[in-house]
Structures are given as structure tokens and as C-alpha cells.
């Protein structure tokens, strides 16, 4: 998952970004003002936007309006020092999905970020199940048919993204965009290597492939077991 953090207070941005990277293992891009924030958001490669309200050049409301006006449905979590009801109402009405007032708790921020990302992908529960694969996003554990699968952070992130979008074709490019921030040099063969490792670990004791490769199009996570396998290969 990839998060856009628009926050002008440098130290706070550093801390929040570090927490999102270290906690749920998200890729995080930071923008220090509203204009850069809007430009980055326009790339549409984010699963969540964390937005401060008081921003230079273009304030949080302005960013929110531009993002929503462009038809972007990315969940937006607003950070604000203003706990006034009117401001919160205006913010939610402008298209924000949730808010946190400063000073906030990093744990709460991470939990809300996770919940918003889940909701943004049509999932409600923190424990996601696709066929025989079960993922607990809180504990960051993965089970295949009740058996624990040990994954590297990157493999986990790829699977997490695919689990949030079961049956959908996810291109390598999309994976790259949503799993890495701008500070990474990324190449599609890195993804290929990770997916290959992931598939090997997941399918170690199963004869049904969990992640399908659609040549030239990308990957697809299928409910691999039993009736869920109607697509076939």
C-alpha cells in the first residue's frame, strides 16, 4: 500500500511517515505544501492520502476539493489542529473520510489508516480471507489452509495488496506504484522476483496456484480452492 502524506511540519511528517513505513509497512510519499500534494495525488497511485489542513500555498480544503473534483476516490484522512465542529463538518462534507486532531496517537493513526485503506477497497474486516488464504492485517500474519506462511515484508505487502483486490487483474505497474514510494529505484523484475517467491511460499503444500500470472497484463489472486476455481488455467 502506498500513502501520500501532505504535512508542512517537517518533523511531524518524518515521524508519521516512519510510523506508516515501520508499522503496516506502507510506502509513503511526503509533500510539504498543498500544491505538491495535489500534483502527487493526481498520479492516482495512492491507497490513502493523509492530509494536514493548514498548509502553505494551498490549504487542506483546497487539496481535498481538487482531489475530489478530479474524480479521485482515494480515502483521505485529515490531520487537523482545529477541533472545532464547523471545521470538521466542512472537511467531511468536502470529501474527507476521517479525521484526527493533533496531537494524535500514532497507533490510532495507523489503525485508521488501515481501516480507510480496507474500506477504500471494499473490505470491512481487518482479517481478510480469499479462498484458503487468510490474512490478519493487524498481526500481519498469513495462513494458507490453516498453515502459517512466513513472508518477507515485501512479499507480505504484495499479497496484502492483492488480497484487497481479489479476482482483479493487478498489473506490475500498479503493484510498483502502490508498493514503493519515490525514494525507491524500482524495476518490474523486482516485482516478478517477489511474486515468484510469494507464490512458492503460498503454494508449498497446495497443488492449486493462488496467484495467476496473466502474461502482459499482470497478476490475479483467485479463491484457489474448490468451487472458487472456475476460471482455471
Amino acid at each position: 500500500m502506498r500513502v501520500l502524506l501532505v504535512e508542512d511540519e517537517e518533523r511531524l511528517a518524518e515521524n508519521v511517515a516512519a510510523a506508516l513505513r515501520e508499522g503496516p509497512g506502507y510506502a509513503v510519499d511526503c509533500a510539504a505544501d498543498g500544491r505538491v500534494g495535489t500534483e502527487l495525488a493526481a498520479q492516482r497511485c495512492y491507497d490513502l492520502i493523509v492530509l494536514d489542513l493548514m498548509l502553505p500555498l494551498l490549504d487542506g480544503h483546497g487539496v481535498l476539493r481538487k482531489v475530489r473534483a478530479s474524480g479521485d476516490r482515494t480515502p483521505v484522512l485529515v490531520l487537523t489542529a482545529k477541533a472545532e465542529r464547523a471545521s470538521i463538518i466542512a472537511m467531511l462534507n468536502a470529501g474527507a473520510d476521517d479525521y484526527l486532531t493533533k496531537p494524535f496517537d500514532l497507533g490510532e493513526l495507523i489503525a485508521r489508516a488501515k481501516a480507510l485503506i480496507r474500506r477504500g477497497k471494499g473490505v470491512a474486516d481487518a482479517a481478510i480471507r480469499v479462498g484458503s488464504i487468510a490474512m490478519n492485517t493487524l498481526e500481519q500474519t498469513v495462513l494458507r489452509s490453516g498453515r502459517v506462511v512466513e513472508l518477507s515484508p515485501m512479499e507480505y505487502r504484495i499479497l496484502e495488496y492483492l488480497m484487497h483486490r481479489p479476482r482483479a487483474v493487478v498489473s506490475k505497474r500498479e503493484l510498483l506504484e502502490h508498493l514503493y514510494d519515490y525514494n525507491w529505484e524500482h524495476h518490474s523484475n523486482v516485482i516478478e522476483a517477489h511474486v515468484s517467491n510469494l507464490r512458492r511460499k503460498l503454494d508449498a503444500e497446495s497443488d492449486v496456484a493462488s496467484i495467476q500470472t496473466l502474461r502482459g497484463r499482470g497478476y490475479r489472486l483467485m479463491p484457489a480452492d474448490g468451487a472458487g476455481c472456475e476460471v482455471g488455467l
Partner: protein
Amino acid sequence: MRRAYSIKRRLIASVLLVELLSAVCVTGLAFFYERHAHMRAFEVMLRGRAYALLGAVQDAEDEADNVMLDGTEKALPSRDIYQVWDEKGRMLGRSANWDGREPGWLAGGRAADERQPARLRVDGEGYRVIRVEGVRIVDPGDKNGGVRRAVTIFYGSPTRAVWRAVWGAVEFYAETSLGLLVVTGLMMYWLLGRGLAPLGELARQAAGVSAQSWEFVPSDAVRGTMELAPLAGALEMVLAGLERSFEQQRRFVGDAAHELKTGVAVVKSSLQLLAMKQRTAAEYAAGLERCQLDCERMEEIVAKMLLLARIEAAVEDEGKSADLDAVVRQVGEALESMAAMARVRIEIVSSGGMEVGVGAEQLEVLCSNLMVNAVQHSGEGATVRVVVERVLDAVELRVVDEGEGIEAEVLPYVFDRFYRSDPSRSRRTGGTGLGLAIVKAIVERAGGSVAIESEVGRGTTVVVRLKALRAVEGFV
């Protein structure tokens, strides 16, 4: 509880008092006028009756050609009194109700003015008596035209009826005046109630103003009232000013809260981040150091906010003064190492005797804020020029840098509190957004002025003007 002062009651009381006074005057004047008029009429009547009495004096038909009363005098009103005397001092006749004594003022020969009536009491009743000199000619048909007999008549009549008429008239005036007084009181109560209605309306509208709703729109009735229009206007102006300063204050509190909350959020998140997972000792040490820096930044913000509040409260710098030249040089020295690190040269052009009415401590804050800004915004190899000079009766401090300059659109806001024209830059240099606000507060407190001009790419000049305490020496 003391009764509240009422304009209405006071006005009514004043008007009624004036009216009462005039009523008393009118009544008094009426008394004198009526008395005069009635007495004149009365005297004319007396005179008429006296002449009627003179008509009753006839030839006595004796050898001495005396005169006598012929009896027709009996037809005169019975309550009147009279005496008729001849020139030899004989009484020719008198009314029954008057004794035979000659009135003293006549007998005494005091040359009393016969026109002046005399007051007299007869049988306990007040009379007014006049004296009429008359001549009766006996045997006018004789040679020499007969004998002239001078007769003196005293005639009086009771004045009770006259007084009754006078008092009647006075009573009428008094009663009418009192009636008018009552009518006026009632009319005023009603009219003032109506007339003062806009005042009550104004009070109601003013009472509706609060810190939440500053709206104050005087009604047309209030605006259209000549006496109230200035008051309403003044109220409007005062309220507008209050609203502005209240809004400013609220914004400051909001901004301050934002800054502090952000500061707390930074510290809190730094600590939470550190506690998120097991870390190495080096990581903990680095994290704690960052927390320390975060705390120091917050401390700085709080200190500056307090300084700003203290300057605005203006309690400590009253009557203090310092030499701007000395302070500028001192700050320049203190900034030397910082400037050297940034490879910026500080050039000070100043001479002594630049006393201004700001305490040394605040003057130092002012100079250091401006000079640090200039150094921080200058590129390597640039020069910051600090010029202190006399301009007429003011001391002018100019801080000129060759930095990147400030865009014209943000220039008007740089003195606002917590305003940061470029956050990434000022965060990097640890700006709090209060430096220039503090400069402005210090300068304005001392009655001076501060201005800024800037051109992007060329640099920025801040000009502070403070009133000089000492006159220019050697100037004629």
C-alpha cells in the same frame, strides 16, 4: 436599591418645574394687574359718586350764601361713606356710618395728594376714600356771577367686592395654570415615551451584540434621529474595531493553539515512533536527541509567544532607552560565527548617539530577529548591510540583504503572527513565524514604524524608524 436615573422622569420634572414657576409668575402678575385695573375702575366709580354728591350741594338760601346738602345724597349706596366740608371748615353732611371726625390726612394739612385715595377701616371693614375738591356757585344769576363756595368731599366705598373680584381672577389663573400643569405632565409622559422609543430600540440592538454575533445594524428610526445618529455611528465604529481586534485575537489564539498542538504532536509522535518496536541503543539515543530538539523548538515558540504577549502588555519597557548603535554592534558580534558558517558578511554602518525609547533587551531582540533573518535568507558570499542613521528627529535602522527576496503577494503578510512565506525554508532554519511579528510589536509599542520592501532575486530591505531621544548635536 437606588432608583435608576430616568431621562424621561427628569425631563418631565424639569418641564413641570419651569411651568410651575411660570404659573406662579403669571398668577402673581395677574394679581397685580387685576388689582390695578379693578382699583382704577373702583376709583373712577368713587369719583363718579363723589361728583354725584357734589350735585347734592345746594344754596342754603341764607344771608351768608352758605351751601348745604339737599338730601339727594341719600340715594347713594348705603354702605358708602362720605363727608362734605365747606371752605370754612364746617361739615355740611356725612353718611350715617361714618363718624364726624375729619379724616386725619386732610385735617393735618399735610398737602396730601388728593388724587391718592386713602385706606380706611370703618366698622371693621376696609374702605377706600378719595377727596374731591368742588365748587358750588351760589346765585349765579347775580352780578359778578354769584358767590363761589369751595366744597371738599370725602367719599369712600368698601373694597371687599373689589378684592373679591381680584382674587377671583387670580384664582382663575392659578387653577388654569395647575390644570395646564397636569395636562402637560400627561402629554409629556406620552410624547416622551414615543420620542424616546428609538433610544430603547438602540439599546435593544446594542444589547444583541455579543462576542459570537457582532452584527449591529441600527434601524432607520435610530439612524433618522438626529441625536442618536452620532451615537449609533460611534457604536458601529467601536463595534467594528472591537470585532476586528477580537477576530485578530481569536486568530492569534487559534494559530497559537495550532502551533502548540503541532509541537506536541511532533514530540508525542517522536516518542511513540521510538516505542513502536525494539530498537538498538544507538537508535534510541538518536531518537531521544530528536525529541530533545523537538522540545526545544516548542520551548522557543512558547518563549516567543510570551515575549510577544509581554511586549503588547507593555509593562516592562516603559521609560527605558538604549543606544541602537551599541545594540546593533553587539548583535553583529554575536552573529559573527553564524554568519561565518553561512559565508555571509555582516557590514555595519553606524555611529554613536542613537538613543531610542526601547529597552536594551527588546532592542536586542528586534535587531537580532532582523539580522538573523537577513543572514538566513542570504546566499553564500552575500553581504548583509545594517545601517543606523539619523533621519530628522528619528533614528532609522535599515537591514539590507541580498537574499532571494519575498514575493510581492506575500509581502503584506510577513508581519502577521505565525506567517511563514515559505514553510520548507523557515522550518529548515527553525523559524517560528513570530520573529517579524515581535519586531513589529516592539516598534509599534515605541511609537515607531516598520516597513519592508523586497524584490525577488535582488534581496529584502527592512526599515525600522524609531523616535530619537536626543537632539542632533552640532546641527543648527
